[in-house]
Every structure is written in C-alpha cells, then in structure tokens.
C-alpha cells in the first residue's frame, strides 16, 4: 500500500541543538515533497518545498533534503529555539502536481527546551 510515514511522533531537544525530522514514503514517485508547521489550534503553514531533482533546499535556519532513491526527506532546524516548538508535517503530491492533492504524514511534535 502507499503510505507516508514520519518516524517520530515526538522529538525533544535542547535549545541551540539541531533538530532532525524524518519523512519516509513507499510506493510513490512524487515530483516534490513539502514541509508544513502546525501550531496547536491552528491550520498548517507552508515552510518549504523540494523537487525531485533537488538534493537540498535551505531557508534561514531550515534545511530540507530529498533522496528519491531512499524515498526519504530529512528536515533540519539548526540553532533551535523554544519558538520552534510545534508539529511538523511532511506532504507529497502522488499525482505529480497535476491536481495539487497532498498526502500528509501524521506529523512529528517537536519540543525545544530552554
């Protein structure tokens, strides 16, 4: 069956450290993969998109990698801060972008302790 998995339900790290979140998928060949942030009681907010021909993408303290051979994306937050505490969702479009439909992982709840 097709699925997308985020390996950790929760991740606790110390302020200043690098948080690394994992997203794995099976039986898809997505043209791109996305990461979203969701705070309690709010809708997800788009963070980054990485295409299949891109190995790495950065935005400020955020970095995403995409390995289509391993069928895996890694999401890094460097120099983490308590304000980074949230649930992070990965998502992919199984139809290659033709419809915009996204399949979401269940999310990883990140807690950054001061």
């Amino acid at each position, binding site marked *: 069956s097709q699925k997308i998995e985020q390996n950790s339900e929760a991740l606790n790290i110390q302020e200043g450290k690098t948080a690394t979140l994992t997203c794995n998928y099976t039986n898809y060949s997505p043209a791109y993969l996305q990461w979203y942030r969701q705070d309690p009681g*709010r*809708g997800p907010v*788009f963070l980054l998109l990485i295409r299949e021909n891109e190995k790495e993408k950065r935005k400020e303290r955020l970095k995403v990698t995409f390995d289509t051979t391993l069928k895996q994306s890694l999401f890094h937050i460097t120099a983490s801060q308590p304000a980074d505490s949230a649930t992070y969702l990965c998502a992919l479009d199984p139809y290659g*972008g*033709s*419809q915009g*439909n996204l399949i979401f992982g*269940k999310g990883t709840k990140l807690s950054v302790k001061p």
Partner: protein
Amino acid sequence: DAGITQSPRHKVTETGTPVTLRCHQTENHRYMYWYRQDPGHGLRLIHYSYGVKDTDKGEVSDGYSVSRSKTEDFLLTLESATSSQTSVYFCAISGTSGGPGNEQFFGPGTRLTVL
C-alpha cells in the same frame, strides 16, 4: 491565514442532522480543498475543487458532499452527521488562475462535535 476564513469556527450538533461548513477565500485561487484532521490519522483529503462547479472526491469522501458556485466559496455538507465525523475540518487553497500550484494555504479550521 492568507485570506481564508471558515465558518463556523466551532459547532456542536446532533447525530442525523445536516451540517454545512463554509470556506471563503479572497485570494482568487482556483483550487480549494477540504481536509479533516483526527488524532492518529493526520490530515486526510475529503473533497477538492479545481474550479467553479468542478469538484472531485478525496480519500475520505463518504458521507460528505461539496459545492462551489463561486470562485471564493467552497461548501462542505455532512448530509446526516454521525459521531465518526467529529473532527477538525480545514479548508485550503492553492494555485492562481493557472495550475494547482504547489504550496497550500490553510484556513483556521472548524471544530465540529457530533453528539
């Protein structure tokens, strides 16, 4: 929230009653989506629209219908609400007048409780 509103924000209803949730956007995006979010399941697509009067089913469409008579409005109807439809419902938009675009912009959500 990128010019997306959802109404109502909270609703409590009884089993068997019809319920309509509204999503309104001011961004003129062509694509609109309805998701539900439940613990242990994450976000799941219910229905989506790729234009006025153009809609299609998502992963969990049973018991739901949608309508889109104007670009800015996308309605989700629970024809006869059941307790299993207790959830948080999110509307999302993407794309401009062309393709679906890539990133989606989400509304604030509607928390629905069916007793």
